[in-house]
C-alpha cells in the first residue's frame, strides 16, 4: 500500500536498468527500503543494480523482460504481481535511436516504434488489468517534451513519445475510478547513457532531478509533470507557435 505521506511498499521497474528509473527507486528507498522487482533483459548491469538496491535494505527480484516481444508482456506483468500487490510501477524503458537513420531505415524505425510505443501500450493494458483488480496503485510513465510538439530534428522518436504520452494520460483517466493514479513525466534532455556524447540541450537535467520530480508527483497524486518544471512554460509557448515559424526554429 502507498501510505498517507506517499511511501510505497513495493515497486516494479519496467526497464530495470534505466538510469532515471533506478534513480526513482533510489529516491523512494532513501526514505524507506521497499520490495523492488526489476524487469529487464538479463545483463550484468541488471544484476549490479539489484545488488546495489539490496545493499540499501531493499528486497529485490529480477524478471526477464524484452520490450520487443509484446506477446510475452501479459505473462511478465503477471509474474511481477505474483509476490503480492505492486504499489508503484515505473514504465522507464525506451530508445532514442539515430534521428536521421530512423526515418529512412525501416528496421530502425520499427525498433523505435515497438520499444517506445507498442511495448508501453501492451504492458500498460496488462498492468491496468492487474491494478484494477487490486484497486490501488500508481504508475509513472516516462514520456518526453519531444512528444509534446514533434520536431523535424527527431520526429520518429518524438512521435513515439507523443504516442506513449497520450496513451498514459488516457489510461490515467480510465483508471481513476479504480483507485489507480497515473503520472506522466515529461523530461527534457537528461544526462544518461542514452544521451552520452550528445551536446546537452538547454534545461538539461540529471536523472536524480527527474526522479525527485517524479517521486514528488506520485506523492501528490499528480497526473502530469515536466522535469525540470520550467519545461512546462517553454512547451506551452512552443505548442502555440504557427507551423510556418516553428519549422524555421533551430530546434
Amino acid at each position, binding site marked *: 500500500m502507498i501510505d498517507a505521506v506517499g511511501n510505497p511498499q513495493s515497486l516494479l521497474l519496467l526497464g530495470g536498468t534505466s538510469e532515471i528509473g533506478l534513480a526513482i527507486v533510489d529516491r523512494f528507498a532513501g526514505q524507506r527500503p521497499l520490495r523492488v522487482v526489476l524487469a529487464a533483459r538479463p545483463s550484468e548491469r541488471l544484476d549490479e543494480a539489484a545488488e546495489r538496491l539490496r545493499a540499501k535494505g531493499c528486497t529485490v527480484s529480477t524478471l526477464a523482460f524484452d520490450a520487443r516481444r509484446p506477446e510475452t508482456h501479459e505473462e511478465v506483468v503477471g509474474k511481477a504481481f505474483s509476490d503480492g500487490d505492486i504499489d508503484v510501477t515505473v514504465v522507464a524503458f525506451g530508445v532514442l535511436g539515430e534521428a536521421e537513420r530512423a526515418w529512412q531505415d525501416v528496421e530502425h524505425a520499427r525498433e523505435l516504434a515497438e520499444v517506445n510505443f507498442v511495448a508501453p501500450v501492451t504492458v500498460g493494458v496488462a498492468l491496468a488489468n492487474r491494478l484494477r483488480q*487490486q484497486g490501488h496503485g500508481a504508475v509513472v510513465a516516462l514520456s518526453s517534451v519531444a512528444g509534446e510538439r514533434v520536431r523535424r530534428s527527431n520526429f520518429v522518436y518524438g512521435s513515439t513519445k507523443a504516442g506513449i504520452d497520450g496513451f498514459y494520460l488516457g489510461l490515467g483517466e480510465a483508471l481513476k475510478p479504480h483507485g489507480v493514479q497515473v503520472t506522466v513525466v515529461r523530461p527534457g534532455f537528461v544526462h544518461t547513457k542514452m544521451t552520452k556524447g550528445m551536446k546537452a540541450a538547454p534545461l538539461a537535467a540529471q536523472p536524480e532531478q527527474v526522479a525527485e520530480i517524479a517521486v514528488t508527483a506520485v506523492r501528490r497524486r499528480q497526473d502530469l509533470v515536466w522535469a525540470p518544471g520550467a519545461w512546462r512554460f517553454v512547451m506551452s509557448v512552443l505548442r502555440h507557435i504557427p507551423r510556418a515559424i516553428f519549422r524555421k526554429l533551430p530546434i
Partner: protein
Amino acid sequence: MPEKLGRLTGWGRTAPTTARILERADRAELADVVRAADGRGVIPRGLGRSYGDASQNAGGLVLDMTAFDQIHHVDTETGIVTVDAGVSLDKLMRQMLPHGLWIPVLPGTRQVTIGGAIAADIHGKNHHVEGSFCNHVLAIELLTADGEIRTVTPDGPGSELFWATAGGMGLTGVVLRATVQLKSVESAYFLVDTERTRDLDDLMSRLMDNDDQYTYSVAWFDAASTGAKMGRAVLTRGWSAKLDDLPAKLRNDPLKFNAPQLATVPPVFPSGLLNKLTVSAFNEVWYRKAPKERRGEVQNITQFFHPLDIVGEWNRVYGPRGFLQYQYAVPYGAEDTVRKSMEIISSGGAVSFLNVLKRFGAANGGPLSFPMPGWTLAVDIPITDDLGPLLDKLDQLVLEAGGRLYLAKDSRLTADAFRSMYPRLAEWQKVRDAVDPRGVFNSDLSRRLML
C-alpha cells in the same frame, strides 16, 4: 444485494483506494459474502472516522454497517443496552439521555459507530479513571470468517476472541451487535475547571498532582511555540454536573441534548491554507482566549467534549491533500520523550492546532488495544512533502521509549515499527489465525502493517 464500486479514504482524506461497497445487507447476506470472500477479502466500515486506512479494502469488499442502526434493548434500571454495530454514539446519546444514561467513553467526536468504537477500542478524556470503550462492553455478537455468529464476553466463553476484537481493527470479524454498560448521570452538563499553564513542566506537574480527582481531563497545548513557552497549555478538567450544580434555568431540563452544530464546511478549501503562519496565529489566540484560571464553570456537551463537532465535515479545511493525526502513548518515565517530540513538532515544518496531551490509566486485556499507563499526545498535521521523514523520526523516539501509535489514527507506520510497538501481537495473531484461517478479513491497514 446493492453493491457499488467506490473510492474510499479515512477521515484524513489521504491514500484513496477503490473497493466494492456493500450497502444495506441483512445478517444472512453478510454471512454469505463473508463465506464467499475472495483473496482481497472483506472489511466492515462504520462512519469512516478512522483517520487512516483502517476501513478501506482496495480491490476487495467493504461492508457499510451504518444500516444496522437499531437500539434493541434498554434496561433503564441497570443501564445495560443492546445495540446494533452501526448505531452512532450520537444517536445512542440522544436516545439514552432522557433516561439519565450516559455513554461511558466518548472520543473527540460522536460520529463514530459502536462497531468502530469496539474495533478501535476508543478512549476519551476519562481514560485515566474509567478505561477505554471495551472496558464497558459486556458482550459482542461477532460474525466470523466461517459465516457463523458467535457471542463473546470479556471473561466468559470466547474471552480471547473478545479481547482480540477489542482494538482488533475489524480483522477478527464483523461486530453485529454489542451489549454495553452505560453510566447514570443527573444532567447533560459538566462542571469544568480551566487552568492555563506556563510551559510543559507546569502542565505535567499539574496533571500528575491531582488528575485523579477529576472524571474528565485533557490539555490542549500550543504546538507552535518553542523555547520557554513550549508546551504552554489550557488544561480543562471536570465532572458530570449534578442537578444541584446547575443554574436555575438549566435545572428545568437537565437532560436536554445540548450539542449545537453551527455549519458545515464546504469542499472548496485549497491545500496549504493551514500553514505555519495561520496555525501559529490560531495557537496564540486559542491560548489567550482561555482564562488563566476558572473553577466550576457549567459547560454543555459540545463545549466540553466535542468542540470540533460545532462545525460539520471540518476535515475539509485541510484541502485535497488531506491530513493525518499522529497520536502516541508512552509509559510514565518517558517524560523526556514527550518533551523531545514536542520540540520536533513545534520547531519542525509541521503545523498543528488540535494538540492534546493527557494521562492514560490502566490498559485492558486487548493485545492491540492502544491505551497504556502513561502519557498520550496527539497532533494533527496537513500532508506536506517533508512530513514523512519528520514522523519517521518521531516513530523512532516513541519506539525507544517503549511506546506505541494509535491504529485508528495511523496511516503511515511501517510493519516493522508496528511489530515492535505491540509486543502482544503474536498472541493476537494466534487468535485471529484460529478464527480466520483463510484470511478473509483484510484492509488497507492490514496490508500495510502485514497483519
